[in-house]
């Protein structure tokens, strides 16, 4: 679908805009990454407000995570998370076997090291959504074989 591609292109452009400095040099530093994460955070924070409008009230954090895997993921990426694992102590691992932002990149070692910057926005998106739902957390991502990737959510208990 053409309208789906629009979001992919916008995301690609955001990443390249943020990671390129004014002189046209590539910067992969922490500053660019935190900017990307921040964009994701505020997007997720606002977006979840609208998404959860018609859902019933969540009972506990597991229910929140399930909603993230199902409703949130399908709203943003048009598919659900393939696997959700937890240690029941505040660590959740969301595995997506065909992550949308990596799906159009060739699976070779050449691009593997460039992949992380395409996950940072989504990390922020997750962190923002969860923060808005009342869960403070740290989100990290890892990719071993493209286009599969894993997001690890560490909830911070009060």
């Amino acid at each position, binding site marked *: 679908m053409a309208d789906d591609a629009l979001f992919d292109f916008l995301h690609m452009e955001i990443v390249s805009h943020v990671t390129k400095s004014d002189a046209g040099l590539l910067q992969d530093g922490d500053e660019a990454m935190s900017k990307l994460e921040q964009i994701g955070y505020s997007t997720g924070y606002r977006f979840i*407000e*609208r998404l959860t*409008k018609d859902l*019933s*009230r969540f009972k506990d954090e597991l229910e929140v995570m399930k909603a993230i895997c199902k409703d949130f993921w399908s709203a943003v990426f048009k598919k659900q998370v393939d696997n959700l694992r937890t240690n029941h102590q505040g660590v959740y691992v969301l595995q997506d076997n065909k992550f949308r932002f990596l799906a159009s990149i060739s699976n070779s070692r050449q691009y593997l090291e460039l992949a992380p910057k395409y996950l940072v926005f989504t990390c922020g998106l997750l962190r923002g959504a969860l923060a*808005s739902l009342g869960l403070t957390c740290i989100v990290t991502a890892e990719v071993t074989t493209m286009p599969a990737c894993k997001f690890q959510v560490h909830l911070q208990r009060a």
Partner: protein
Amino acid sequence: MAVCIGFIGKENSPLFLRCINQSQELQFHYIMHTCIDFVEEKIIQSNKSGSDVRELYLGLLYSSEEVKAYGFVTNTKIKIVIIIDSTNSLLRDNEIRAIFRKLHNAYTELVCNPFYTPGDPITSKSFGALVDELLASSS
């Protein structure tokens, strides 16, 4: 009739309060503050009861001789309270639900406004106008 509509933020800070009679505003702030406890109590109760249906609408929170307060909590922990004059029994439960739904929709629209930072007190004019309209139409 509805005399006051209030929004309370995630960390229980006041976001917005609008009432028909300006001179009663302080009194309504106190009632809003009282309602926070009732909201928390209701949420804990409904979680314990283990029923599958957990609505965002919480129903009657508090009633005194003069006023009744109805509550609503969003998934993102924003509380909405409507205060109604006790002498009025015309407003039915489903009408109150309808008002809450409109308020919730208005809030989600507001959050999409790039000039609004979530968590700040609400100063949007169109949002205020909508609340005024709801107050006027239910009175």
